[in-house]
């Protein structure tokens, strides 16, 4: 039995009692009644409150720090200098000093007495202006350059020539060669990498050090492609830096239970992964760090680390004799330093035949991911046009450090690609839905295991039905009246394979069931999903089991990012529950006069499959365990084929645009989404609704607006960093792809994919309505009016 992997599967559709059903989230009652405790709500005995002195400069050297007045103030229990004399500040709002006091007002008073002198340095926050005349980086290739070239499937000859010319900036380790062999890279490519000269990186060869122009990427023959094209459309597109704007800001409560043991309540997406980070920052053993979190008020990709503030909260607690200190970021800091999705802009040319066949793509793109510059979004996105030439320039800025934001790089790549394709369709006079269907074969990934192109086609057809594409779509700009209506579409993808996860499941002789896992529920329904899987396997209702998560003393589970949680936690739980069930069957089989293999656990009883009347209630069955509970540890990865990766989705938007005021109104949006086997249907749908609403906000409202002169953020508050409200979102429809072709692939992550398409779909709907492209997001009224009146008044810039 033990080496038989086939037992680890998902139940067939007619056998599922809880999986895929619409079940209310288990922590709903706590949340709606205000009882759910977030990090921000935790009140530790003797807790002190921290306040932080932040840099007003975007780029500066710290010259001196004087904390003497603060240290003498009554009620001040600790002062810790985070960045002392000589430190270099790279963005406004960066943390310099933290004080801990008996209450918040006292801490704020003390922070105001701290004197920091700065030597301002030149800053740069303009990621919008297209980099001009930047020489291409010709220095040796970094590891990232190399993988980018491989990802882009650069032709072998060009690959080898580039390697010989530029060389490598690092020594090739045997592990890299093995990885390339495992990836089945061509032999000539691997040989060329082994033979490439290792060179010292040249001193910066660019005249403006803010720009780093990456090597041109070529696929197929773009020159021939554009020659062959009967129609070529050109456009410029882009979206600015936006922030995560978690409603619960980043922060933690740190306390020292003795001189080298830390206890941290922290708002995190990564309960099991933080101890190592603390250990490194504080120079204590990882085993001495206890991390706990019950609920989190939003993360969206920005809460994987302890961050600078996690470390200094622990440091200032130490200064205060180990007492608990709470530091939660203020709203302005949250928006300035704790969340930042890279911008992306591009000039694009698309070439097509008269029948709509897409044949050539050319793009020059740029964008910023903060001080490091950042990489190019995937382009052309999903639609793999055969002939391509593209070049990306990374812009290093003092806007603030980038963090992962739901589906990193995909929304930007999708916006630019789908906008360019829609513009091409408009130039052809073609329905973009027809153009997409015509080119649907280009959407199949190179290793297509489940016919992705068919999924996209099916999803587009369903979405078209739901939004009334046939009845409501009209050629671009042909709606009459001042308020014009338009429709737009986009398709998107994501990986989402389950992460490493361990689930400890115990069945006690009393019949109670306890599940422990070091995971976290970001509000996506992780608690509910784990219990659904365990309940479906053991024949129990959700309230018959106790689930413990949110603590690093439970078995380790991965961080919740990249849509990896559902695949990880559901497969580790399924394996644990199947193993525990098998042990229970072995214990009770003789009492039922049957073999263990003939038993099933259904509806709160253990019974004989062929004679269901021969049964034991769950409680009676467990009583036969005597004094020994059943303990099972389920792991992912593990035996059996429970999960996979790679999904497709389609989004369609219906908008009305007032051409006099420039206001865009959402009429309706539809998302048709695949995520393999749906575990918890109700919370899965909620996640898709939420992704669409976030998409509406990023398309119409959100922008981290920077002041070029001061280098600071102009809108670090929720009046001017606007989110979507309940009246802004229009009618929303979610359709999950389920059943044959989907269920057998097992659960695949859902957090990222539906966030990708909305920007592109809404942008295309606006272009369809008003007849011209609003090139840059957010699509604010002024940008709409300017796009309609390109030669208008003195403010006609975008």
């Amino acid at each position, binding site marked *: 039995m033990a080496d038989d992997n086939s037992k680890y599967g998902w139940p067939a559709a007619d056998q599922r009692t809880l999986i895929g059903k619409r079940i209310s989230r288990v922590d*709903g009652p706590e949340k709606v009644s205000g009882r759910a405790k977030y990090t*921000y709500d935790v009140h530790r005995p003797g807790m002190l409150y921290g306040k932080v002195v932040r840099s007003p400069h975007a780029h500066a050297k710290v010259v001196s720090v004087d904390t003497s007045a603060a240290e003498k103030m009554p009620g001040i229990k600790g002062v810790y200098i985070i960045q002392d004399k000589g430190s270099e500040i790279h963005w406004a709002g960066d943390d310099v000093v933290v004080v801990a006091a008996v209450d918040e007002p006292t801490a704020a008073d003390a922070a105001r007495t701290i004197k920091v002198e700065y030597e301002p340095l030149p800053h740069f926050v303009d990621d919008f202006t297209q980099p001009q005349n930047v020489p291409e980086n010709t220095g040796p290739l970094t590891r990232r350059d190399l993988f980018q070239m491989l990802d882009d499937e650069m032709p072998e000859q060009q690959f080898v020539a580039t390697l010989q010319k530029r060389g490598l900036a690092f020594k090739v380790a045997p592990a890299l060669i093995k990885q390339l062999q495992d990836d089945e890279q061509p032999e000539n490519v691997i040989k060329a990498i082994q033979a490439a000269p290792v060179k010292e990186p040249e001193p910066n060869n660019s005249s403006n050090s803010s720009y780093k122009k990456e090597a041109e990427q070529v696929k197929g023959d773009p020159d021939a492609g554009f020659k062959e094209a009967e129609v070529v459309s050109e456009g410029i597109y882009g979206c600015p830096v936006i922030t995560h704007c978690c409603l619960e800001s980043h922060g933690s409560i740190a306390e020292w239970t003795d001189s080298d043991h830390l206890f941290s309540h922290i708002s995190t997406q990564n309960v099991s992964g933080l101890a190592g980070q603390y250990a490194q920052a504080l120079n204590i053993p990882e085993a001495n760090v206890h991390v706990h979190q019950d609920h989190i008020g939003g993360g969206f990709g920005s809460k994987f680390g302890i961050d600078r503030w996690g470390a200094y909260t622990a440091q200032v607690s130490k200064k205060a004799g180990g007492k608990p200190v709470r530091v939660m970021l203020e*709203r302005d800091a949250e928006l300035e330093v704790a969340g930042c999705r890279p911008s992306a802009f591009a000039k694009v040319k698309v070439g097509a035949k008269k029948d709509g066949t897409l044949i050539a793509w050319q793009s020059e793109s740029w964008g910023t991911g903060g001080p490091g510059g950042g990489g190019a979004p995937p382009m052309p996105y999903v639609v793999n046009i055969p002939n391509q030439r593209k070049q990306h320039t990374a812009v290093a800025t003092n806007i603030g450090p980038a963090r992962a934001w739901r589906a990193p790089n995909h929304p930007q790549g999708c916006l630019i690609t789908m906008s360019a394709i829609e513009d091409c369709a408009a130039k052809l006079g073609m329905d973009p839905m027809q153009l997409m269907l015509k080119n649907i074969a280009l959407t199949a990934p190179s290793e297509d295991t489940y016919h992705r192109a068919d999924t996209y086609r099916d999803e587009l057809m369903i979405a078209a039905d739901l939004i009334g594409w046939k009845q409501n779509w009209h050629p671009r700009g042909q709606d009459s009246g001042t308020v014009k209506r338009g429709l737009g579409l986009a398709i998107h993808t994501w990986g989402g394979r389950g992460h490493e996860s361990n689930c400890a499941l115990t069945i006690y002789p009393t019949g109670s069931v306890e599940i422990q896992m070091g995971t976290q529920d970001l509000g996506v329904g992780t608690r509910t999903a784990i219990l659904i899987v365990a309940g479906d396997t053991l024949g129990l209702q959700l309230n018959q089991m106790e689930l413990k998560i949110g603590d690093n003393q439970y078995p380790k589970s991965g961080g919740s990012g990249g849509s990896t949680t559902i695949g990880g936690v559901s497969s580790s739980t399924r394996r644990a529950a199947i193993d525990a069930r098998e042990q229970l069957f072995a214990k009770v089989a003789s009492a039922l006069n049957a073999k263990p293999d003939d038993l099933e656990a259904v509806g709160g009883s253990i019974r004989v499959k062929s004679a269901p009347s021969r049964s034991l209630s769950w409680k009676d069955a467990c009583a036969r365990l005597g004094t020994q509970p059943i303990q099972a540890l389920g792991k992912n990865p593990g035996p059996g084929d429970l999960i996979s990766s790679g999904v497709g989705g389609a989004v369609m938007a219906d908008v009305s645009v007032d051409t006099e005021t420039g206001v865009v109104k959402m009429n309706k949006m539809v998302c048709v989404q695949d995520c393999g086997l749906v575990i918890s249907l*109700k919370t899965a749908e909620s*996640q898709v609704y939420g992704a669409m609403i*976030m998409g509406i906000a990023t398309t119409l409202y959100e922008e981290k607006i920077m002041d070029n002169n001061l280098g600071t953020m102009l809108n670090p508050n929720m009046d001017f960093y606007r989110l979507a*409200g309940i009246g802004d979102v229009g009618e*929303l429809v979610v359709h999950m792809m389920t059943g044959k072709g989907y269920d057998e692939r097992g659960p695949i992550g859902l957090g990222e994919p539906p966030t990708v398409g909305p920007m592109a779909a809404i942008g295309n709907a606006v272009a369809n309505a008003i007849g011209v492209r609003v090139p840059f997001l957010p699509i604010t009224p002024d940008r709409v009016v300017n796009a309609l009146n390109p030669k208008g008044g003195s403010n006609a810039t975008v």
Partner: protein
Amino acid sequence: NGKKLNAQLEPRVTLLDALRDQFELTGAKRVCDRGTCGACTVLMDNKAVYSCSVLAIDAQSAQITTVEGLGEPGHLHPIQQAFIDNDAQQCGFCTPGFVVATKAFLDQHPNPTPEQIKHGLGGNFCRCGTYAGMRAAILQAAKTKGA
């Protein structure tokens, strides 16, 4: 919530901070801290207020109802039950504010139209995007309350 509570506070302390730090009523949250997002909504003499923008001294002898006072697990208010049934929360950080704002709204508009909901609850923000569930929840709560 029907109890008389006393505290000695500095004049600058807000009603929100007093509720949270003195009385352990942590349902109401501080998010924008300037009367924009509605996460701190409580009822003051049956009227919805942003408790981040009310000083504690101005709330002396007023009747304050927080989300905790509307119901508790096992004895939930119909609005809270409707939020669960329609999955009108994800991370749940904005939820207490929305639940209390919905109470005040339905007191004023017992049979709301979708248009009234748009305006009546436009003073609260959710980041996870739970408005689809909320619209359904508010309509359900209006019905169950009338029944």
